[in-house]
């Protein structure tokens, strides 16, 4: 069976530091794959490989079952893999519609008088955001005036709009409060409903569990296993992620301090 995106025994070394070792995972359309791990587990190295920033030193990436090598983020994007970075997805001083179409602006006319189709851009941006459940009062509003959750949501909607088949979300909820995280998680589900495959990177199992279909747990550059949702419950996910023994030890220590 061919998957939308698959990593096959991918490894990455920085000098003699092993960042990733033999990571395998796969993603299908209309599915959310959560990659969980603590800081330094290798999450960001993995997404950088998936999005074309880094190239794997061993192993291969497969897109629709065929091997792919991305020399740059642009090549990954061309293959339909869009990455939404934590804080680096939007230009705060620019309006919502300008951000929405940034880098892929609709134009009319022929050069040298090719100009922006502002009307279309404005309407399309608002219509699509509305369809994704984001009610922007005014598409001319600077993105900087949106809340953090709304900002992430606009970035996700944009990626979906531009036909991303794979959406990589790098810690989209890490800097957000409960309510804003809710907005983003709802968008993750919407993106999945639109048929995109979502790679959701997080260190928060409570955010991952409700939206995820499958979970990959990373620890020190290696997988601790891949689980489908029915194979695992939230507690177990938390326990695995922190490394079960260590958490038990921590619990013991805390009890002693408070006792």
């Amino acid at each position, binding site marked *: 069976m061919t998957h939308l995106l698959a990593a096959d025994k991918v490894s990455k070394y920085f000098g003699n530091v092993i960042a990733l070792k033999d990571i395998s995972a796969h993603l299908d359309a209309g599915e959310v794959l959560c990659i969980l791990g603590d800081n330094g587990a290798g999450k960001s190295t993995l997404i950088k490989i998936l999005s074309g920033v880094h190239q794997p030193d061993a192993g291969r990436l497969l897109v629709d079952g065929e091997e792919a090598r991305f020399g740059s983020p642009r090549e990954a994007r061309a293959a339909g893999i869009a990455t939404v970075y934590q804080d680096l997805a939007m230009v705060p001083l620019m309006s919502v519609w300008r951000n929405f179409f940034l880098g892929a602006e609709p134009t009319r006319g022929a050069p040298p008088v090719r*100009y922006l189709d502002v009307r279309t851009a404005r309407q399309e941006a608002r219509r699509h955001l509305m369809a994704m459940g984001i009610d922007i009062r*005014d598409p001319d509003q600077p993105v900087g005036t949106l809340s953090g959750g709304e900002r992430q949501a606009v970035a996700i909607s944009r990626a979906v709009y531009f036909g991303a088949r794979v959406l990589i979300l790098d810690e989209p909820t890490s800097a957000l409060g409960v309510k804003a995280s809710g907005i983003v998680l709802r968008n993750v589900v919407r993106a999945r409903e639109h048929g995109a495959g979502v790679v959701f990177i997080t260190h928060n199992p409570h955010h991952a569990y409700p939206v995820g279909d499958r979970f990959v747990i990373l620890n020190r550059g290696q997988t601790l296993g891949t689980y489908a949702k029915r194979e695992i419950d939230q507690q177990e996910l938390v326990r695995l992620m922190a490394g079960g023994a260590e958490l038990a030890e921590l619990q013991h220590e805390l009890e002693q301090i408070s006792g």
Partner: protein
Amino acid sequence: MAQVAESGLARDERLARVGLAARLFQRPEIGSMVGVVAVFFLFLWAAGAKFAELDGFALWTDEASNVGIMAVPVALLMIAGEFDLSAGVMTGSAGLLFAYLVTRPDLNVWPAILLVLLFGLTIGFINGMLVMKTRLPSFIVTLGTFFSLAGLNAGLTRRATGSVYIPDVDTASGFRSAHRFLGSTFTTYAFPDRVIWWIVITVVATWVLARTRFGNWIFAVGGDATAARNVGVPVLRTKIALFMTTSTMASLLGIMIALQIRSAQADQGIGNEFVYIIAAVVGGCLLTGGYGSAVGASIGALIMGMITVGIPFAGWNSDYQRLFLGVILLLAVMLNTLIRWAAARSRA
């Protein structure tokens, strides 16, 4: 669902229309617009009606165009998050090269203009590549180009002519036709050609900023270069293009000045780089990039023109001209900040 969205759209359109006045107050150039009206009436009061009559008008628009032709590209570059401190001295380098070409190898004026514009493109390309490839702040890199060019201007002029200026530009072939379009005046009120160029440059820059992809990229690379790169904006190409535009415009202005004063002097343009930046900042450009307008920069230039001409016109002591510029700069920037703050608050 779709129906709900449609009706939502319609309602919001109406809301936006009501907020038109509020939207005006969100424009970057609003502070400078208030400033230009204030300065105009100040000099109308101090210098009398002559200030507003056509020959007075021709004088301060002349000076305004002298600043504005450069303030506009400098503003675009600032919106993209970069500075060009070599912009002032570049007018001198271009003027000298032009004067040299038409008087020593006796080149016709028109091919000389082409060569000088090519020279401008080259210097801009070098500036841009140095900034982008070294990842040093453009403030430092172009300061380097500034001093290099200033030294070359002095050294090469003396070497080539044994003097510090190149006279007799008006003896060159083709001078008359070029002078008419680039360095002369029209009507009996001595209205300078340059003003037309300035207006055209402002209009084109405004259109580019607001209505083209490139304009969108200018805002993006200045607002957040990493975010822009992440969505596929060619950051390198955008910034280098703007550096090239700036130094090419400086070359154009240098040619105009050489045609106007029929000569070129080795120290021409030194110190003007800050005048351009001041005009852009008065016009609402943020020093940190990502925000500003071409119209604002031109209004900033207009204010500078009014002050430069208005002070001797009013018979005031011109020793205080810089004090005046300093106060205007501070007031305009404070006003800009205040308005932006108020606009942001009304949004929330």
